[in-house]
């Protein structure tokens, strides 16, 4: 397919590109920017006047709910949601049922995803068998099956010795270890950030030190073992500061934040809105502001959706009993744009947090628009408002704290491997 995208505002963070130019695609790759190659005959033209053309979004965490949780959502619906959100590559955590600790399961998932011809799926393998925190998985085999990294999802990995061994083993094969900083015993019964709001609402709290203690442990072990570590879903201002210091010391650590956490705080729980029951919990305004700053100054490398579709019944319960998580694939772009606008971040930098930087964390070649690069693109209308409501979301998960709000940033086209996989219907 030969595609000519004309009049768009091309933004390629990796190449520091932000200008109006045409873009030409052939055989699944970007062939030229600006002028058409010799004898280029487009089979398809996209008029991107007034639209931004950027690399397809790279989401570091999206739960697709397969295998095992098909009652919550299916691969089909969630992959539809991903491309509707402009996402062309996504990593999915290993906490499926069964967990992704066997090469066969990973192959099956990759196969299923590939056959849909939509976004690229990068499974993150389980660090320990069954995610039980005791025995190592066959990380090399899993890598060969398609895993790009290994994590423990939200399951506790409190045994420092096991964590250290897992990091050593992973780094033997130069495989990155992705970990959440959440101490199990300190966060066991908590459902909200330990502080003023949780006290007033009578909700058991998770103290900030549950994150900082776990974070320090992870970083000390990373230093000890030389493993490449990625911290998932940082949530506190103290946590951001610890990462900042670690990076200054030259530790090979990266981290991400959830798109929800750069906008919301525990105050948004209001009178027990279970859509705000998230892991890690939404912390104070001070924490939220530190996360925004951390994302701006690069301490936090990427923002991800942390997409977790939950069926309605599981949210219609008292706060503590409601299942944690929010749907997010279709909100990643508007929430990133909102943060950029509020924090005075130029669009190029902002988009890097959802394209080139997460691509670097994943170790994949996406997130770039240079000639020769795979044509994974997102074309969106930066100033178009749309309402977040069940009927406007393709994901089966309608559980988001942003329900009912209008957001700016509407995807018009998503291209994967030079094919238009998503085209918005005019509304």
């Amino acid at each position: 397919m030969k595609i000519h995208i004309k009049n768009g505002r091309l933004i390629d963070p990796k190449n520091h590109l932000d200008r109006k130019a045409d873009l030409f695609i052939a055989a699944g790759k970007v062939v030229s920017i600006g002028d058409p190659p010799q004898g280029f005959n487009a089979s398809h033209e996209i008029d991107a006047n007034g639209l931004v053309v950027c690399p397809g979004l790279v989401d570091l965490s999206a739960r697709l709910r397969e295998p095992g949780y098909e009652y919550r959502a299916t691969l089909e619906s969630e992959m539809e949601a991903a491309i509707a959100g402009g996402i062309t590559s996504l990593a999915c955590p290993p906490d499926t049922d069964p967990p992704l600790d066997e090469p066969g399961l990973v192959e099956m998932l990759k196969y299923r995803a590939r056959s849909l011809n939509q976004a690229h799926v990068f499974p993150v393998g389980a660090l320990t068998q069954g995610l039980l925190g005791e025995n190592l998985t066959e990380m090399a085999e899993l890598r060969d099956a398609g895993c790009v990294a290994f994590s423990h999802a939200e399951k506790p990995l409190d045994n420092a010795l096991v964590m250290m061994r897992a990091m050593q083993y992973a780094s033997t094969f130069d495989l990155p270890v992705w970990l959440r900083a959440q101490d199990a015993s300190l966060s066991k019964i908590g459902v909200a950030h330990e502080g003023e709001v949780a006290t007033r609402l009578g909700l058991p709290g998770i103290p900030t030190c549950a994150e900082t203690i776990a974070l320090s442990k992870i970083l000390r072990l990373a230093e000890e073992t030389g493993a490449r570590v990625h911290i998932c879903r940082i949530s506190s201002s103290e946590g951001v500061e610890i990462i900042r210091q670690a990076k200054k010391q030259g530790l090979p650590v990266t981290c991400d934040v959830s798109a929800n956490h750069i906008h919301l705080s525990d105050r948004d729980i209001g009178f027990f809105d279970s859509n705000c029951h998230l892991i890690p919990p939404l912390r104070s305004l001070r924490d939220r502001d530190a996360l925004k700053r951390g994302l701006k100054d690069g301490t936090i490398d990427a923002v991800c959706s942390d997409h977790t579709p939950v069926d309605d019944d599981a949210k219609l319960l008292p706060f503590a009993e409601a299942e944690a998580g929010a749907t997010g694939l279709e909100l990643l772009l508007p929430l990133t744009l909102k943060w950029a606008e509020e924090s005075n971040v130029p669009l190029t930098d902002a988009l890097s947090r959802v394209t080139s930087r997460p691509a670097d964390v994943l170790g994949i070649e996406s997130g770039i628009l240079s000639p020769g690069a795979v044509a994974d693109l997102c074309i969106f209308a930066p100033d178009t408002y749309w309402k977040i409501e069940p009927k406007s979301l393709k994901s089966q998960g309608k559980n988001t704290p942003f329900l009912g709000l209008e957001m700016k940033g509407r995807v018009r086209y998503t291209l994967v491997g030079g094919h238009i996989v998503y085209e918005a219907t005019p509304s």
Partner: protein
Amino acid sequence: MQRQLNKNGELQHLLTIEGLSAAMLHHILDTAESFVGVTEREVKKVPLLRGKAIFNLFFEPSTRTRTTFEIAAKRLSADVINLNISASSQSKGETLLDTVNNLSAMHADMFIVRHAQSGAAHLIANHVAPEIHVINAGDGRHAHPTQALLDMYTIRHFKRDFHELKVAIIGDIMHSRVARSQIHALTTLGVPEVRVIAPKTLLPKGVEHLGVHPYHDMAKGLKDVDVLLMLRLQNERMQGALLPSAQEYFKYYGLTPEKLALAKPDAIVMHPGPMNRGIEIDSAVADGPQSVILPQVTFGIAVRMAVMSILAGS
């Protein structure tokens, strides 16, 4: 979102003391006062809520609170249906809202809800038909508004003016819905000094943001206090590394005559019941002249009658 008041500012549900004005609280107390008169005559019934169906939805067992609500409802001539929804229907997979929807279909006018989870009453109130009123009889650690109201009634009865008082709440503030509701009521009614007295493990983080002064030393905390609100200490607190033993708790935080003597000579002692004698309170104090624990019970019925009447009439 505050859903307790309808667009006319009338009380539609009673879920929490937060968000209620001092005027509204006094209105409830004044109405309760007129009902005290009713409870003192021989025919204790009035026909106010005749034909109304009130459902007691107790997801957490409680004989005492449920009985008080039942008596109050019957004195208003309402029909009362008691539902102890224990593990049975919950284990059959029926959700909280399923249960409520099924009961709503039986023409309920009012639900009185007690649940082990904070926010349960709010969840129910957000999902019932507009004509149905919900009273929170205790949700997790969050709120127990009718208990706080009857405590305020008792204080007003014995002490008259809230603006001159020092009030101390003693015990497991961390896990107490009664304490949280009392704190909101006291601060709203203008009590200038509200103290909470407990070991650090039983004080929730940020409690001072609720407008109270935390004390760990009971002697300091009780000095010149006019009203002592005792809280019950659950047995479970001795596990989970919160407290070492009942004995040590009683020694440092139990109310004995000696400690009571540090408060004002005419200070009153209250307790929501049931009391753990010898753990949070000494029998000499519980049965002593400064204890107003028994009158609290009568006031409790009148206060609940007042709440039900005000809701039903809105």
